[in-house]
């Protein structure tokens, strides 16, 4: 743990995400690398697989009043709230917040009651169907603080995998960090701030698309009348 006053977190760019699910797969893959962190699947190769994922990528259609509809791909994961509702409800103390803001679960103490998953308004926690303990994103705590890795490798697996650079990782409390500058420039926002969770993770809104063209139709290529006009009418679709 690096500790300190800083709060490292994710900033997700909804303008850049293309909905490829690479973050979900990289997350699953990274956790599968160690027996203690496997995000297990029940019936993984059977007809009805059922497994735990810490990243889920939704797709929404957003229809503005006077513009064409646009698709927004929307990765959803733990937002590492400053005031996480999942922590105080835990009766065993398995769910806790580290000094550096990362919300984590002590698996050996989790009795699998599921109350923390009920308390999270974002639906970010999933019960491991095989281990019977709650699972959640730790921002790859064993990656980002691994001294054996070079500085640019100390980022969560989802950020490392994102092909479009839609996921940014950094210290949100440092106003000069890349993530803080992005949030300031692009108007980064909190999900459902009314719930009092104070998420550290921010979303960068999609930029508005162009409006529908309202220009006059294309000018005619051939003047009215004459043999060219007759050919034009003959060959035109209507």
């Amino acid at each position, binding site marked *: 743990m690096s500790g300190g006053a800083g709060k490292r977190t994710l900033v997700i760019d909804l303008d850049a995400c293309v909905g490829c699910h690479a973050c979900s797969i990289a997350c699953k893959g990274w956790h599968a690398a160690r027996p203690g962190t496997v995000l297990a699947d029940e019936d993984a190769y059977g007809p009805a697989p059922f497994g735990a994922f810490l990243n889920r*990528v939704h797709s929404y259609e*957003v229809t503005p009043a006077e513009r064409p509809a646009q698709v*927004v791909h929307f990765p959803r994961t733990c937002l590492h709230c400053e005031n996480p509702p999942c922590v105080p409800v835990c*009766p065993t103390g398995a769910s806790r917040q580290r000094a550096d803001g990362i919300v984590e679960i002590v698996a050996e103490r989790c009795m*699998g009651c599921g109350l923390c998953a009920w308390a999270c308004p974002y*639906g970010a926690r999933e*019960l491991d169907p095989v281990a019977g303990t709650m699972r959640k994103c730790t921002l790859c705590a064993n990656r980002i603080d691994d001294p054996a890795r070079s500085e640019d490798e100390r980022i969560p697996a989802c950020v490392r995998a994102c092909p479009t650079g839609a996921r940014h990782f950094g210290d949100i409390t440092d106003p000069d960090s890349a993530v803080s500058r992005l949030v300031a420039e692009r108007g980064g926002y909190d999900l459902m701030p009314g*719930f009092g969770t104070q998420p550290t993770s921010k979303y960068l809104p999609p930029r508005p698309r162009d409006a529908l063209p309202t220009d006059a139709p294309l000018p005619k290529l051939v003047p009215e009348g004459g043999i060219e006009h007759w050919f034009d009418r003959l060959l035109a679709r209507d």
Partner: protein
Amino acid sequence: MRPAPSVILFTVFSGFGFGTLALHGLGLGTGAAGWAAGFGFAILGLVCSTFHLAHPLRAPFAFRQWRTSWLSREAWACLVALAVMVPVALADLAGHSGLLLAGAIGAGLCAVAVFCTSMIYGQLRAVPRWHHWTTPALFLVFALTGGALLADSTMLAVGLCLGLSGLLAAVFLAGDRRLSRSGLTPGHATGLGGAGRVRSLELPRTGPSYITRELIEASRRGRSATLRVAAVGLSGLAPAVALALLPEAFAVLAATGLHLAGALCARWLFFAEAEHVATLYYGGHISEDG
């Protein structure tokens, strides 16, 4: 929310048991059968609650976080209430009436236990139908009514039965009205509502997940007017009629059976109808607008 049998049986039985113990502790009920039913249902309910746990053997850890967790407080309150009630029950059965103060304290602790149970659900802002003062009120009135059925005063039981049915019906309707005006839409949840109308185009998975099974599927089936009428009728109105009309020998048994059936029905609806806010990410709507 998924209406898991374990939590339905837990809340109904432990509520009924603690309600019975409370009224017996106050001296409103006497006799071995009532005390046995009180302890039996309270303990049965707590046993049922452990079936909800993926790791029931770790349940003793649940006593640790009483400073913040209502589930932990509930564990303590149940244990203390049962412990205080044991000597009160033994004294009552032995014919002593000197433990009235201890009985009153025990009754208060039973009420605290039921209140803590209700706050496990009432505390959750993420489930707006539950996050309201009517949740603890409903749990407490359910417990009180169940206890009154096994107490000595028929008038009290009939009055509480009618009050319970009225409260339950009001909570159903007030909850619907509150949520339809809550402004909880996919646009609100994603923060994209300002840009336009938001509709779920594609789900993030091809099969079910823990989130969809536990938080989302049940409430998306919609509301059942039939079950609501059954819950209101069976939990209060039918037991009141049974107590008033049936001969005394059958009346208490029939009224208790009807009330428990109604309470199970009402508690099933309490879970099945409760919308979790995360449903908004999966294309669900809680509010009518947007």
